[in-house]
């Protein structure tokens, strides 16, 4: 277990006495594609927020590649190698596509603020390096050059989703967290997304953890699935194991909204 990329042990989180996460153990193996599923309100996004340092769990430990994350501030967590995208697009509006990606590389730059103010040569060289790396990320997700100087929020929805992934990749993560990456995508775009996620793992060597409601996509792409229900991790296993797990079936069938159609 110690060689896991991400290891959570005994995570406990409560807000004003209301328990959100209870003794959660969870892990992502190196270069794995793992899905975190569960009914609405199960605590999936809260768990993401704990991993990225936005929530500080009252109990437990979070370790990335041997380094403790649970006491770090969010920007330090990103610098340590965890990036995420959002369920709702949160691109920097009024910035170009390229600038959005370049802003993701802040924690990988060496020039200080003083160098930037004075416009030192080393700063300019680094600026070119950053632009080159950003272009590489954009090509990787399949956004062609014609789009790079456009205002980010003018892109088509599917392209904005890819841009968010490119921006997250620019932080050079070891682990990428995707929060409902397929939300709002059509069937063709979903297939492209599956290809992209696999390439992120295979070509860039980055572990991927996703929260996704589209169970078809989850079953197609995941190597391991963890199931969260009412703040408790009720199951962990391969796709086949999860599909036949009675507790999982119960958790999903017990839910009465439209998203209960768990495709078994």
């Amino acid at each position, binding site marked *: 277990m110690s060689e896991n990329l991400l290891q959570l042990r005994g995570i406990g989180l409560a807000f004003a006495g209301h328990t959100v996460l209870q003794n959660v153990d969870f892990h992502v193996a190196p270069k794995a594609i793992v899905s975190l599923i569960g009914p609405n309100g199960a605590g999936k996004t809260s768990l993401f927020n704990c991993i*990225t*340092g*936005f929530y500080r769990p009252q109990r437990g430990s979070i370790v990335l590649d041997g380094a403790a994350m649970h006491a770090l*501030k*969010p*920007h330090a967590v*990103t*610098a340590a190698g965890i*990036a*995420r995208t*959002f369920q*709702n*697009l*949160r691109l*920097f*509006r*009024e*910035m170009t596509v390229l*600038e959005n990606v*370049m*802003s*993701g*590389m*802040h*924690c*990988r*730059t060496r*020039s200080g*603020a003083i160098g*930037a*103010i004075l*416009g030192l040569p080393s*700063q300019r060289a*680094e*600026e070119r390096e*950053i632009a080159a790396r950003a272009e590489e990320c954009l090509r990787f997700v399949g956004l062609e050059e014609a789009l790079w100087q456009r205002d980010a*929020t003018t892109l088509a929805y599917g392209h904005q989703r890819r841009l968010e992934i490119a*921006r997250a990749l620019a*932080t050079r993560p070891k682990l990428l967290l995707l929060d409902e990456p397929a939300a709002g995508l059509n069937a063709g775009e979903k297939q492209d997304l599956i290809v992209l996620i696999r390439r992120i793992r295979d070509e860039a060597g980055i572990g991927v953890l996703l929260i996704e409601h589209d169970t078809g996509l989850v079953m197609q792409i995941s190597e391991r699935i963890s199931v969260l229900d009412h703040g408790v991790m009720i199951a962990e296993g391969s796709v086949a194991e999860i599909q036949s797990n009675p507790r999982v079936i119960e958790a999903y069938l017990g839910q009465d909204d439209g998203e209960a159609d768990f495709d078994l």
Partner: protein
Amino acid sequence: MSLSVIIAHQLVNGLVLGSFYALVALGYTMIFGVIKLLNFAHGDLYMVGGFVGFLALSAISGVVGSGWGGIFLAMLLSMIGVGCLGVLIERIAYHPMLHAPRLSILITALAVSLVLQNAVLALTGGQYTAFHTDLGFGGIHLGPIFISYNQMVLVATAAGLMVALEFFVTHTQYGRAMRAVAIDHDMCRLMGIDVSAIIGVTFFVGTALAAAAGTMAGAYYGSLWYFMGFLIGLKAFTAAVIGGIGSIPGAMLGGLILGLLESFGTQIPGIGSAWKDVFAFAVLILVLVLKPTGLLGKSEQERM
């Protein structure tokens, strides 16, 4: 004097005045951008910048003289010193209030303004301080129009600072981070951007620009006073709102427009120079009524 000569002279006067307004307005708008605070102490930092520039010039004029070279050096020292003061004020007074209700931090800014004014009042005894320089009265004559070298240097320096700022904001990681912080703090944290460090950088740059304007204004007008930041603070706020608060090109444009409007306003028959402040704030009210987002401002909109 013919009308065209009056227009040309007022154009030059307006550019000089507008340069001061623009430099101060830039800090106003940048600070508003990153922490949504109307920093009412900003005009007072301009005033402190004038005094620090004056002290710096007194210290170095023996070596470098007190022509534009000396003033330029004094200005740089003032920018660094007062820039650091701006960062210190942010850390001590504003940082602990960032998550408090908006009104608390606004009142804190008013308190900082009072502290700065009264500190300088105590140190100077409320007297005007003469800002001695060796600036000549030379200039060039373009027909009947006279433009002094001082006016030209001043406008060119202000323009140079604004070009440098524009470069910083669009072509460096810190500048980009500053714009990103103005848009979404949490997203910046997820991009590995240390938001509180960027807020510090923003205060440094914004305050340094005000200090540059303070030093140049002191040298140009030849005197300093503890209360000189009050009115320009309000004017710079007006300029920032005219341009669209939060917008950097807007602050530059708003400053220039306000400077030009004021100088031309004094030439309208029946409106003497005593009325120029009325003119400036009437424009503020007009902008707020007709285009509340300012000339280059964008309305806040929530996207899904």
